[in-house]
């Protein structure tokens, strides 16, 4: 059973133009209540939400009528958290997070809730959840030890051009389409800002190929309307040390196989 609650503190976004990003609530807040206020502590995805919010703020500064904005939805599948749904909502309001809606569902039908809400990107710390949604054609990314949980002034999105990160998942045509359309919208958002002082940075990394792989990936992204800010061609060097410096908020990988062709 899926139920959706709107956040009355936040202005709802225009559904046609907004980019709906669903984040697992357990990634945003720590389960244990903090203090006596029944307000949750910040979780690993908290800075990510702040960065998404910052992009919206800057988009509206450029154009107060802007409709290409991030529309943030919190998804809860955890039955315990669902019982504490009021805490979730009050914590969100307490921190002033720009969450439009809260979706509560079971683990079986949370994908349905994603599709119902026209979610274009799903983010979670749960590897299984991400894998399942990915296979159903929803663009998903895992929040792991490589993604930053430090507050950042800038939303940093990493595209992995020739990812071998999750070799067990094969991108379906649906997921590739989802990836392309999300990326194109991200590209459009990026165009609203100048070269420097952008609240959004689009980063490309190729791990195994040489310089021509990376060059090809740059050209492919450009053809999708995506101007890349930073590019890193590793040609076999270990990803870990570079990722720790890069500090992406999330990584879009296995939907782009063939990006470098």
């Amino acid at each position, binding site marked *: 059973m899926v139920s959706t609650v709107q956040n009355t503190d936040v202005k709802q976004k225009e559904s046609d133009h907004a980019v709906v990003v669903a984040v697992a609530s357990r990634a945003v807040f720590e389960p244990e209540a903090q203090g006596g206020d029944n307000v949750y502590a910040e979780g690993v995805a908290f800075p990510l939400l702040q960065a998404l919010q910052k992009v919206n703020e800057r988009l509206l500064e450029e154009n107060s009528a802007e409709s290409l904005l991030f529309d943030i939805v919190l998804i809860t599948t955890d039955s315990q958290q669902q019982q504490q749904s009021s805490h979730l909502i009050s914590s969100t309001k307490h921190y002033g997070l720009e969450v439009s809606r809260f979706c509560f569902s079971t683990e079986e039908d949370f994908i349905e809730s994603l599709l119902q809400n026209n979610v274009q990107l799903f983010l979670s710390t749960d590897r299984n959840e991400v894998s399942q949604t990915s296979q159903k054609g929803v663009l998903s990314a895992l929040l792991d030890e490589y993604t930053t949980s430090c507050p950042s002034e800038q939303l940093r999105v990493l595209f992995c051009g020739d990812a071998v990160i999750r070799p067990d998942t094969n991108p379906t045509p649906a997921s590739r389409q989802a990836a392309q359309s999300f990326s194109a919208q991200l590209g459009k958002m990026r165009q609203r800002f100048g070269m420097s002082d952008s609240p959004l940075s689009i980063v490309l990394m190729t791990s195994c190929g040489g310089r021509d792989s990376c060059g090809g990936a740059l050209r492919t992204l450009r053809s999708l309307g995506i101007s890349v800010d930073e*590019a890193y061609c590793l040609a*076999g*060097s270990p990803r870990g040390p570079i990722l720790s410096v890069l500090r992406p908020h999330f990584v879009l990988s296995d939907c782009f196989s063939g990006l470098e062709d």
Partner: protein
Amino acid sequence: MSEMKPSDVATVEDSSQEKDWAAAKAFFDNLKSNKPIPPKPQFAVSIAVSSRTVFNMVRLEVAAPPPHPPLPTPPVNNFPLESELALMNVNSRLRELYPDSEELFDVILMTNNPAQVGVRLINSINHYDLTIERFCMTGGQSPIGYLEAYMTNLYLSKDSDKVTEAIEAGIAAATMFMPEKEMELSDTQLRVAFDGDAVLFSDESEIIVKKHGLDTFFEHEKRYENQPLAQGPLKCFLEALGKLQRKFYSKNERLNCPIRTFLVTARSAASSGARVLKTLRSWGLEIDEALFLAGAPKGPLLQKIRPHIFFDDQMFHIEGAKDLGTIAAHVPYGIGQKYHKGKLIEQPAKNE
């Protein structure tokens, strides 16, 4: 100071690193061009170069991308071509002698330019067939973190602020100064010349010269002849070169070694030279030729040596080298930065 690269700590990280490596190796093995995969950073002697040290960059306006890739930018003074040939010659000789070793040179492009300029840079690298497969286009972010991530042994840039930052972070680095006229350089032997004080060694002795004069300096150096000098910012790079040289020596290739190192110092052999040689020996390092100038200008001697690069901490020597055709690399370290031609430079008020 970045010492020899740390050995692998056995963690879960390693198995994913090995997977990355295996995937990259498979990619390169499948290339029709027969390009070898670049060496593993933890074993390689990595040289990071900025785009302006390699190409004659024109500040590009990042407007709408052109429909066709523009003409490649020309290299600066053949520096990349001949040094690149010499570096790659070392690599191919090493691969012959040690087919399984990753102890090779690796050149990484480290540029501030946004990735939009990236395609043009890649086209230029292809056009001149340079052996650069790894790059970081940081779009304005500081390169220091990436230099460290690559365990960079030497960073060359035209931006002295970045070079200073790198030195302060313990990375061997120098600011490039290109001569106007070209010198003919070897494409089979990499020749690297170093100044001594405040480059290979710390600036402790130079401080004495500047503050107390030459006579005190000579006395001091004689008295402390047997006490090794502290190390300077480029000691580790000399060490890395020495490690590669020894691989040739072990295979009886000393006479034919494709790397040759030079010490070009204003010290004089008689009065202050011994301490320098003893210091190098105490570090287990060799230098092929030690040239003591006793204060004579370095330019003419460098013209005879024809190094691919000459490192010095004092702009006076850098200019002298450059004026006579040597590619000079300024090491912004130590007391020499506060002086110009022996006179203390007035420090400008810091703008905060």
